């Protein structure tokens, strides 16, 4: 059998958590609201309504572009993208076509999975642009029900080049992108709520083949990073099977069924979409000054990969730093607790110790950082050993464990820990195990 490599590109949509809509003043992200209760003439597509762009949405899109090392286009505009669907109120979506806000970036990370060890990887970002979200469809029996509350929510679309050759890379990329978006605080990026959505475009080619394959399959309805990996793996297998039979996989959109772990063909439209893009006449174009773009860049927070590096410099293991940085709140907690602890502690490996306790949940993070610090000291404080009691307990244990003591004397080193355990039992834990071991070894030595 020939050897194939996956060729995967990603299309990711991120709903911004602005206060108002992309082109209207409706409150957005009202997830528990009654249907069609947060709409206005603009986002409902009523006759005569007109769009006015949200300043913050523009800024946040630029920020996302900058975080992904893109070039920000100084001249940008909106375009109309036409297609018919009941959740699309105007019969066109206001999006961006040939002059998107950001282009040609890359997202880099270190791979430490599979066969990779600290392998630096970089994946190219083709473009980042801004558009509006559609309404939400719900299927109930013979009805399709539509709620337009979501219509007009600012939506950022991120498109990568088809650089991915492994589903592990895709998963890692998405996790890193997710963290970046969270760090920028521009979206909740919740896969389950749908504020972050992604569609892989999958095909395969022979190992060593330079040209891109002549087809690609888009997979929709994936709502977790694990499922992305599984969907890609499934598709790759399916494509290999078809190609081995001399067939080319049909260029189509498929859905992911997470219960059955398969993709299925969705009823395809006969033609590829013809969107009839043209510049949105209701919205004047944008010319960004260098100053404006720089002002936005200045507000860039520390990004996840920078934070990982900073933590590593503190002495924290890479894997632990990576895990911790997936959760911004936890990082904040860690750094606050660290401040308290550092007041009374100068040991070198304190940072790593704290992180381990947080990750292993040795100390709960539901308590305040100050209380965490207290608990931390309690756990790491050397236990005072009552030397009088210690001598007595050791005596008692030696007397009651002749066999073990003999074994130890005869060279079975490991028995000492059993004996230490016994002494600890006697002392009811009120002893420092290291001190106990030392004393025990000493006393046994002095026997005879």
């Amino acid at each position, binding site marked *: 059998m020939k050897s194939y490599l996956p060729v995967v590109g990603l299309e990711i949509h991120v709903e911004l958590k602005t206060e108002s809509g992309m082109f209207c003043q409706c409150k957005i992200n009202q997830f528990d609201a009654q249907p069609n209760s947060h709409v206005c003439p603009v986002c409902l597509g009523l006759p005569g309504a007109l769009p*006015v762009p949200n300043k913050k949405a523009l800024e946040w899109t630029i920020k996302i572009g900058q975080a992904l090392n893109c070039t920000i286009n100084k001249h940008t505009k909106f375009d109309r993208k036409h297609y018919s669907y009941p959740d699309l109120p105007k019969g066109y979506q206001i999006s961006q076509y040939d002059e998107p806000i950001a282009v040609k970036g890359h997202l880099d990370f270190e791979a430490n999975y599979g066969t990779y060890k600290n392998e630096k990887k970089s994946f190219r970002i083709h473009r980042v642009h801004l558009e509006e979200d559609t309404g939400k469809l719900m299927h109930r029996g013979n009805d399709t029900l539509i709620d337009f509350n979501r219509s007009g929510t600012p939506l950022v679309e991120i498109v990568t080049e088809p650089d991915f050759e492994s589903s592990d890379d895709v998963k890692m990329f998405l996790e890193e992108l997710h963290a970046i978006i969270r760090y920028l605080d521009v979206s909740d990026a919740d896969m389950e709520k749908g504020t972050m959505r992604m569609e892989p475009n999958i095909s395969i080619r022979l190992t060593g083949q330079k040209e891109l394959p002549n087809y690609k399959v888009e997979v929709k309805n994936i709502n977790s990073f694990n499922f992305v990996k599984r969907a890609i793996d499934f598709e790759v297998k399916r494509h290999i099977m078809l190609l081995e039979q001399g067939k080319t996989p049909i260029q189509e959109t498929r859905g992911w069924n997470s219960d059955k772990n398969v993709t299925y063909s969705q009823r395809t439209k006969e033609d590829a979409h013809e969107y009839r893009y043209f510049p949105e006449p209701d919205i004047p174009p944008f010319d960004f000054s260098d100053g404006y773009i720089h002002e936005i860049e200045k507000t860039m927070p520390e990004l996840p990969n920078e934070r990982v590096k900073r933590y590593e410099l503190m002495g924290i293991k890479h894997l632990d730093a990576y895990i911790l940085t997936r959760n911004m709140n936890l990082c904040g907690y860690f750094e606050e607790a660290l401040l308290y602890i550092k007041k009374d502690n100068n040991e070198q490996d304190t940072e790593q110790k704290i992180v381990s306790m947080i990750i292993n949940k040795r100390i709960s993070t539901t308590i305040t950082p100050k209380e965490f610090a207290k608990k931390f000291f309690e756990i790491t404080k050397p236990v005072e050993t009552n030397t009088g009691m210690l001598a007595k307990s050791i005596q008692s244990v030696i007397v009651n464990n002749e066999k073990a003591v003999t074994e130890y004397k005869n060279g079975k080193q490991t028995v000492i820990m059993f004996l230490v355990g016994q002494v600890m039992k006697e002392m009811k834990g009120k002893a420092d195990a290291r001190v106990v071991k030392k004393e025990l070894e000493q006393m046994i030595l002095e026997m005879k």
Partner: protein
Amino acid sequence: MKQFSMNNTMELNYLSIKEAVEGLKKKSFSAVELTQACLKRIKLLDKKIAAFLTLNEDQALKTAENADNLIHSSASIFDTKPLLGIPMGVKDLFSTKDLKTTAGSKIIENYMPPYDATVIRKYKDAGAIILGKTNEDAWGHGSSGENSDYELTRNPYDLDRVPGGSSSGSGAAVAAGECLFATGTDTGSSVRLPAAFCNLVGLKPTYGRVSRYGVIAMASSFDTIGHMTHTVYDNAKVLEVTAGNDPLDATSSPLQVSQYTTHLNEKISGLKIGIPKEYFVDGMDPRIKDLTLRAIEQLKSMGAGVRQISLPHTDVAMACYYILVPSEVSSNLARYDGVRYGGPRSLFGAEAKRRIMLGTYTLSSGYYDAYYLKAAKVRRLIKQDFEEVFKEVDVIIAPSSPTLPFKIGEKANDPLQMYLSDIFLCPINIAGVPSLNVPCGFIDGLPVGMQIIGPHFKEELLFKVGHQFEQETEYYKTKPKL
């Protein structure tokens, strides 16, 4: 309240806005009486003329009552509400809250907007009384008034002839004395032509001067929001109310709004008038050419200078127009899918369907560059033609129509006349410049109008020229024999 005889009632509904405001101030009559006079006129005539699609009688009388209360309580109320008590017609393309809005189309036959267009809000804030919604060519598609999905509106000057379109109902309503003024939109002809055919002053403002928010879109980069009145003063007064930046319309100009009524009597001696040589060609009704040139002579005698100018890209203007406008039309009509409002798309009339198909074709992949983009470039050249000309002259004067109002069903079959009809009007929308139709005489009892075209945002110049011409000629005093 005084009682008025039938004659006086007729007079009431033919008052200019200026006269009506003076009369209301002096309490010669009440707002309710003024409104009733118009409603009476509508009941008397509208079966014949069919200017109105929907009447707003109860609400209009209520609003008139409130107007009267305000007039009685405050002497200076007209300072803040300049159109207080003035009955108006609204073209059915404007969203009026809870008042049926059909765009002249069967698709939204029963559509009740839950909001007012910005200009409607401005009219209401200014105190105007909305008598009802006027008929139009469906979606604004048409220049005769014969393309409404509803009735056929007739020209009050000759009921066998068209009133012009697409703001046909508005033109006919004002001409017939059914209201004192009416709104219109002008995308390629639609205020200026009905104004010309109905002996009215009609303004197509600069693109972006008046907010489009809430006005049903035809071609987004061509639509302008205008109005028709009996006199130039009235027209300037109304623009003072409607003009201005709107945060809900991203294409509305941030430029300050002039006090248009205060410049009307400034001297026009030394004013330079340009006559486009491409417009005064064979094919025009020679009597119209004559009348227009005489009007220009009149202006000369008032001190203006006249010279011939050229708009060299006039001959490609319509090709540009017929590519760009249907493209935008097809896009703007995409929202009528029957899901959130309205009926199915099968209810579109033939003209709407045609423009949708044309526009879809023009924007299709493979054709965008060759068609749409090319037309957008030619648009730049046409716009530059006007900008260049306005470096030499202050205003351009041209006929509004190469023909008299034609008989219903007999739209010019002469391709040259149809071509001229288009080029007199559409290049102005391509360039976005303002144009004011001013009556310049009658032929066989039928109105003839001329356009005064000016640079972007120079409406006060148009009003000045138009007003002084009007004062000399007084064509507005002629009313149709109904």
